[in-house]
C-alpha cells in the first residue's frame, strides 16, 4: 500500500478546490447542490429508471432544446443565500409595514375617490390570483432547473411572488374597511375569471404554467410574462395610483419592483450563460416570438382598462422589449 496516495484535507470542498480563488460563503453553500445530474447515473433519481418522474426529468430537463455543458457554472449576480435573503426581506417588509402603518394612521384610504377605489377593486386586488400563478410557475422552474444556483434564484422568486401577493391581501382587507360597497374581498375571483382586463394575463399564465420544458418555462415566465406583469400592471398601477392620490399604491409598487429588478439581474446572467452555446440564441428567440404576442395582448387588455391613452400600453410593451433587447439576443 506504500505507493498509494493518501488523500490529504483540502481547504474547501473537493469540487471547489481545483480553483485558485478562495470560495465565498455563497459558493460553499450554493453550488452543485443537486445530485440528480450525477454523471453516469442510470437515471436522475435512485429508483427504476423508467418511473414517471425519472422520465419527466429526462424529457423536460435533460432533453431541453436549450443546451449547456455546465449549467452549474451559473452564479447569481447578487450571491443571495438563505440567510441574506431573510435578512434583506425582513428589512424590506419592515419598510412596507411602516408605510401601511403611517398611511393608515393618517387615514390615507378615506381620501381616495370612490372611483379610484372601484378601479382598485377591479384592477388591483384581483392581482393576487395573477401573482399566485407567478409563485406557482417559479416553483416549477425551481424544481426543474438544471443547477442549484438557478434553482435558488427561482425559489427566491417564488417567495417574492408570495410576498407581493401578501401585500395585495393586506390592502384588500384595508380597502374593504374603507369602501364596503366596492366588492373588496368578494369580487376578485369574478374579475380574474371574467373581466376582459384580466383575460390576457390569465391566458398568458395558464399557458406558462403548462410550459413544462424547464427552459421554455424560464423564457415564458422570466423573459416574457414577468416583465409584462411588472411593466404592464405593477408599474402602471403605481403610476396611475400616484396620479389618483394613492401613495400607498405607488410606494408599494416601487418597493416590489426592487425585487423585480433583482430577478432581472439573475435572468440576464442566465441568458448570458446560455448564449455561450451555439444554437441557444435561436431557441430563445423562437420561444420569445411564440410567447410575446400573448404578453403584448395581455398588456393591451389590462392597460386599456386602467388608462384611456394607448401610450401607457405602448410604453409598457416597449419596456419589456427593451429588457429583452438588453440581453444580447
Amino acid at each position, binding site marked *: 500500500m506504500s505507493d498509494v496516495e493518501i*488523500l490529504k*484535507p483540502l481547504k474547501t470542498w473537493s469540487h471547489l478546490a481545483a480553483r485558485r480563488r478562495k470560495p465565498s460563503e455563497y459558493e*460553499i453553500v450554493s453550488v452543485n447542490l443537486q445530485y440528480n445530474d450525477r454523471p453516469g447515473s442510470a437515471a436522475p433519481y435512485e429508483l427504476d*429508471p423508467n418511473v414517471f418522474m425519472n422520465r419527466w426529468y429526462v424529457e423536460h430537463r435533460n432533453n431541453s432544446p436549450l443546451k449547456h455543458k455546465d449549467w452549474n457554472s451559473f452564479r447569481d449576480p447578487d450571491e443571495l443565500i438563505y440567510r441574506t435573503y*431573510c435578512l434583506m426581506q425582513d428589512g424590506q417588509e419592515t419598510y412596507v409595514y411602516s408605510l401601511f402603518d403611517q398611511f*393608515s394612521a393618517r387615514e390615507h384610504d378615506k381620501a381616495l375617490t370612490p372611483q379610484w377605489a372601484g378601479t382598485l377593486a377591479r384592477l388591483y386586488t384581483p392581482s393576487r*390570483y395573477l401573482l*399566485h400563478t407567478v409563485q406557482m410557475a417559479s416553483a416549477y422552474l425551481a424544481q426543474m432547473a438544471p443547477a442549484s444556483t438557478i434553482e435558488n434564484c427561482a425559489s427566491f422568486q417564488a417567495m417574492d411572488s408570495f410576498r407581493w401577493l401578501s401585500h395585495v*391581501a393586506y390592502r384588500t*382587507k384595508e380597502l374593504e374597511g374603507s369602501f364596503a360597497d366596492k366588492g373588496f374581498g368578494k369580487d376578485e375571483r369574478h374579475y380574474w375569471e371574467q373581466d376582459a382586463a384580466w383575460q390576457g394575463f390569465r391566458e398568458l399564465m395558464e399557458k406558462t404554467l403548462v410550459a413544462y420544458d424547464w427552459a421554455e418555462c424560464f423564457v415564458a415566465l422570466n423573459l416574457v410574462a414577468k416583465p409584462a406583469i411588472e411593466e404592464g400592471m405593477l408599474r402602471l398601477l403605481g403610476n396611475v395610483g400616484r396620479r389618483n392620490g394613492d401613495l400607498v399604491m405607488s410606494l408599494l409598487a416601487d418597493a416590489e419592483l426592487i425585487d423585480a429588478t433583482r430577478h432581472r439581474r439573475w435572468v440576464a446572467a442566465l441568458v448570458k450563460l446560455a448564449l455561450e452555446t451555439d444554437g441557444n440564441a435561436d431557441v430563445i428567440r423562437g420561444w420569445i416570438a411564440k410567447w410575446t404576442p400573448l404578453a403584448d395582448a395581455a398588456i393591451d387588455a389590462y392597460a386599456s382598462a386602467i388608462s384611456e391613452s394607448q401610450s401607457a400600453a405602448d410604453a409598457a410593451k416597449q419596456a419589456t422589449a427593451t429588457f429583452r433587447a438588453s440581453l444580447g439576443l
Partner: protein
Amino acid sequence: MTVLNRLDWYNIARDTNWTPTYVSDKDLFPEELTCAFGLPAEAFEEYDEPYKTTYPEYVKVQREKDAGAYSVKAALERSKMYENASPGWLSVLKLHFGAIARGEYSASSAECRMVRFGRAPGMRNMATFGMMDEIRHSQIQLFFPHQYVSKDRQFDWAFKSYDTNEWAMIAARHFFDDMMVTRGAVGVGMMLTFAFETGFTNMQFLGLAADAAEAGDWSFSSLISSIQTDESRHAQIGGPLVQILVKNGKKAEAQKMVDISIWRAWKLFSILTGPVMDYYTPLEHRKQSFKEFMQEWIVGQFERSLLELGLDKPWFWDDFLREIDEQHHGMHLGVWFWRPTVWWDPAAGVSPAERQWLEEKYPGWNDTWGHCWDVITENALEGNMAKTLPETLPVVCNMCQLPINYTPGPKWTMRDFPLTHAGRDYHFCSEGCRWVFEQEPSRYKDHQSLVDRFLDGQIQPPDLGGALKFMGLSPGEMGDDALKFAWVEEVRADRIKKAS
C-alpha cells in the same frame, strides 16, 4: 396600532384557486404530479393548515433563528470543541452531514412540487415556506461542516457523498428519492411532511441534539434543534391532507403512503441514528438509548397522531416494535465490519463498560451481537486484524439498499425475504421492505442494488478494491475504527484485573 392583525387578511392570501379555461384542469394538474387520487379540486377546498404563518412573520422569525445559530457557531469557534471531541463524536458529525445536507436540498425541490401542484392554496403557501426552509437546512448544514474540511478529509463527504455510489448513499438516495422528489404533491405531503417530518426527523434533530448537548457540542446541538423548529411548522402541511383523503373515501390510499414512508424511514434510521446514539456517542454523554428515543418520539408522540387523524396503526406495527430492539445493532456491526466502505470512522462501542450499558438497555445483547463482537475482540487482542475486515460484499436489500441482517448468536433470526417478479429475483431484508416493493413494483423493479451492479460487471476489478473505487473512496477517506482499537486495551486491562 394601525397595522392589521394577521388573521384579518390571512384568508384572502390563501383564496387563490380559480377555474382555468385556457388550458384544461387535467393539463394544469396532471395526476402523476398532483397525486390527488382523482379527487376533484373541490375536495381540497376545506384544506386548513393548522400552523399558520405569514410572509412578514416568516422572514422576521427566520432571520432571528439564523442570527442565533450562526452566532452560537461564531462564539464557539475558538472553543476547541473539535480538538477535544471524542473520535466517536466526530464520526457522528461526519455521518450526519454527509447523509443529510444535500438531501435537504432535494427536499426543497419536493416542497416546490407542492407549491406548484398542490390543489389547496394554503398547502401551496405553506410549501413555499417549506421550500425556503429546506434551502436553509442544506445551506447551513454545509456551512457548519465546511469549517472542518481543512482538518480531516472525511469532512469533504459532507458535500461529496451524494455524488457517489457509496452504498450508504445509494440507500439514502433511494429512500429520499422515493419519499420526496418522485411523488406528486399529495404524496409529498403525506410521505415527506406527515410521516417523515412529524415523526422521524425528531429523532435525528432533537434526540441527537440532546446527545450533542451532553457531549458539549453546543454549536451542533443548537444548529439541529433550530432546524427542527422549521420542520415542526412545515411538517403540518400533511395533517389536513390525511383528513381530506380519509373523508373522501381514500383512507386505504392514505394509509398505504404513510405505512410505506414509516417503514422505509425506520430502516434508514436504524443505520443513521441507531449506531450513533448507542455506539458512537461517548457512553457518559448518552442521554437515552436509541430505543428510548424511539419510544419517546415515534411511539409515544407520532404513532398516536396517526390514530388521532383517522388512520390505523401500520400493519407491521408489531414487527416494528420488535425491530426497535434489534435491527440497529446489526446495522452498526455491519458498518463497523465493512468500515473501509464508509466515509466516517465507526466507533465500535463495545468496551467492557459499554457492553454492560448495552446489556442493561437491551437485555440479551451479550448472547446475540455479543457473540460476534467476542470473536472480533479476540482477533483484535491477538493482532489478527485481517480477520476483523471483510473479503466479500454483504447482500443488500432491494428496497432499503442496506445489508440484510438481523439477530445473530443462538437466536439466529436473520433470513432472506425473496421475491420473484417478472422473471427477476429480488432479495429483501424484511417482510416490510418486500411489501413496499409489492405495492408498486414499477417504481423499483429495474433499479440495481450495489450487489446487482457488482454481478452485472460494473465494479472492476470485481473485488473489495474495485468496490471501493466504485464507491469513490480512497485512502484518507475510508473509514477505520474510530479509537484505533484503544478499546481493545480496555478489554485486555479488564481481563488482567480479573485474572489477578
